[in-house]
């Protein structure tokens, strides 16, 4: 399939996302899930947010996707302030949540038609786009099958398509490959690389550190709501003498203690 190239705005400083002192404390919580976080993500990056359970990855992505109100701080995406340009911002971003977030009794095509329509994509264009995406991800023969008959991997791929139908400039993915087989994971990662090559900036969270090491152009390891290290995977590995993989860096920075939380 062909994806149209995303052109950067005329006055572009190269920054797609700028986060300034962003914090989030949930009601009744004793600590901040995201604390005073500063981060800049460049246009066209594949940025990995890595961290143990409860580190604040999903909270950060939820705030950037307009799902959660920050307790303090600010951010902008593609120059759009999150408070002032909600509608435009939502048109700019695509979100692939960790849950499947699909209607189980609708077919794949019906789900995608509905979510695509909510972006205001013209019907004919949308139909064509759905066909193309389904074909690329090997699901075209299942277009008219209900989601509740799909395997986990198939649902993940439909979940992904639902987030990219409108060709977002920024794509947020919260553990897009969790619980899927190797084949589905490869298909998803390859497809994300293709999307990124067309100009979409990708921000993704994952617990698969090998996958992140191979896939991401830059990563940030988050723990207890703050960034503990940030850089290109190979740079980070080189900075830590005993590290051969990103996982070694991760364990050195976050420790080996279990992170159970409730």
């Amino acid at each position: 399939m062909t994806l149209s190239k995303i052109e950067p705005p005329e006055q572009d400083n190269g920054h797609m996302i700028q986060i300034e002192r962003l914090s989030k404390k949930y009601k009744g919580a004793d600590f901040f899930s995201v604390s005073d976080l500063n981060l800049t993500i460049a246009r066209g990056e594949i940025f990995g947010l890595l961290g143990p359970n409860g580190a604040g990855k999903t909270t950060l992505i939820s705030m950037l996707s307009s799902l959660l109100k920050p307790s303090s701080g600010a951010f902008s995406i593609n120059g759009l302030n999150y408070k002032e340009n909600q509608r435009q911002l939502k048109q700019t971003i695509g979100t692939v949540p960790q849950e499947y977030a699909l209607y189980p009794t609708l077919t794949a095509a019906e789900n995608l038609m509905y979510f695509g329509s909510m972006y205001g994509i013209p019907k004919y264009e949308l139909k064509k786009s759905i066909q193309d995406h389904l074909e690329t991800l090997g699901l075209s023969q299942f277009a008219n099958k209900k989601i509740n008959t799909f395997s986990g991997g198939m649902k993940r791929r439909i979940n992904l398509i639902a987030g990219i139908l409108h060709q977002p400039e920024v794509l947020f993915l919260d553990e897009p490959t969790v619980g899927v087989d190797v084949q589905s994971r490869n298909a998803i990662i390859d497809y994300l690389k293709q999307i990124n090559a067309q100009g979409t900036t990708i921000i993704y969270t994952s617990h698969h550190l090998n996958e992140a090491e191979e896939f991401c152009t830059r990563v940030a390891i988050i723990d207890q709501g703050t960034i503990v290290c940030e850089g290109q995977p190979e740079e980070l590995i080189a900075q830590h003498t005993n590290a051969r993989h990103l996982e070694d860096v991760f364990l050195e920075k976050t420790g080996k203690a279990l992170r159970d939380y409730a």
Partner: protein
Amino acid sequence: MRKLTASAYKEVVLLTRDLGGLAVLFLMPLLLVITITLIQDSSFKTIKQNKIPIVLVDNDRGEVSQTILENLRSSKMFKLAESTDEQEVQQQVQNGQYQLAIVIPKNLSSDLNQKVSDNVNGILAQFGAIEDSIPTTIKTVESKEVKLYFDPATQFSFRNSIKSGIDQMVSKIETQSIYKAFQEQITDDPTEKIFDTEPFITFTEIVPNAEEDALIPNSTQHNIPAWTLFAIFFIILPLSINMVNEKNQGTFVRLRTHPVSYAIVLGGKALVFLVVSLIQFTLMLLVGIYLFPLLGLPQLDVSDRLPLLFLVAFFVGLAAVGLGLLVGTIAKSQEQSAPFGATLVVILAAIGGVWVPVFAMPKFMQTLSGLSPMNWGLSAFYDVFLRNVPLKELVPEITLLLLFFVVTTALAIAYYNKKNAV
């Protein structure tokens, strides 16, 4: 507009994929209205056709008890048995064998005649119209008590109507005894007609109707509006459950990342569920018109009323949908929405006058009733079904229903926006 139609289309597909849910949505209200009308109609028939088993213990064996006996026999209401043992019939009534036992006391006829005769003599003596030889002193006659034993399972309203009927019968006998005593004192010829003993005042039921052809209300005409309204409001349940399901599936969360307002999401649901309520209403009418006569129930008469009936149903549907949207927005789980929605509908129906007429409620409840959308809907339906009013007289009720929809939907949107403000 495209987003709204896409939302509505998605709701239609979701509904049609859930055949069990659809069946519940359409068949259960029909089952409800059929069951209630059959029961209510049999209550009408209990009075009109089916005879109530009662037993009479006649300890008097006189003229008065004979009159009571004849009146009961000639009444089409009762299947009469006789007994001589008061204790035995008391037990039989307690067991539910008879719904009522009437025990006529000993010497009722003779004592009544004595009492009336003494009173008449006394009056005539006052006017000097009595011979000196007749004693005018009044002997003390103890008052008599007709005992009524009711089956404990009988309803209060039944007891009241029976008591009132017996009371009327006894009063008539007393009056006729007085006339008879006067007649005996004034003339020696018992066939001479001095008094006209027939009731002077009688009652005729006039059905208020602007048109020439008066509509006689029956159980169908009363039940279809009330229970259709009840069923339409029950749409709160599937609608709120639909919304809670979307929250659980994560699709609502996904939609929050889309450039679409909550009003559009609700608009799609409102459109579809409004159509569902109108289909429910149509099915109810069809059942009343075509199925009821086959079940031996009175046929629903909708002649010349269909446009106004659908107009009222439309606004009732809107009010129900508005409430469903609000409940669905606030509820976090099916455990919250289902029991709350069901109980809310029952409460609204109760204070709206679906079970007990508003005029029969305590003052405070009558005031409260004026706040129930079911009351506005019921009044509008009765206005069309039973009073045959023109459109302009429905305006206050349908305006209230429309306002209710606007307010509940606005509250749902405000609540959602407040909860999800970014």
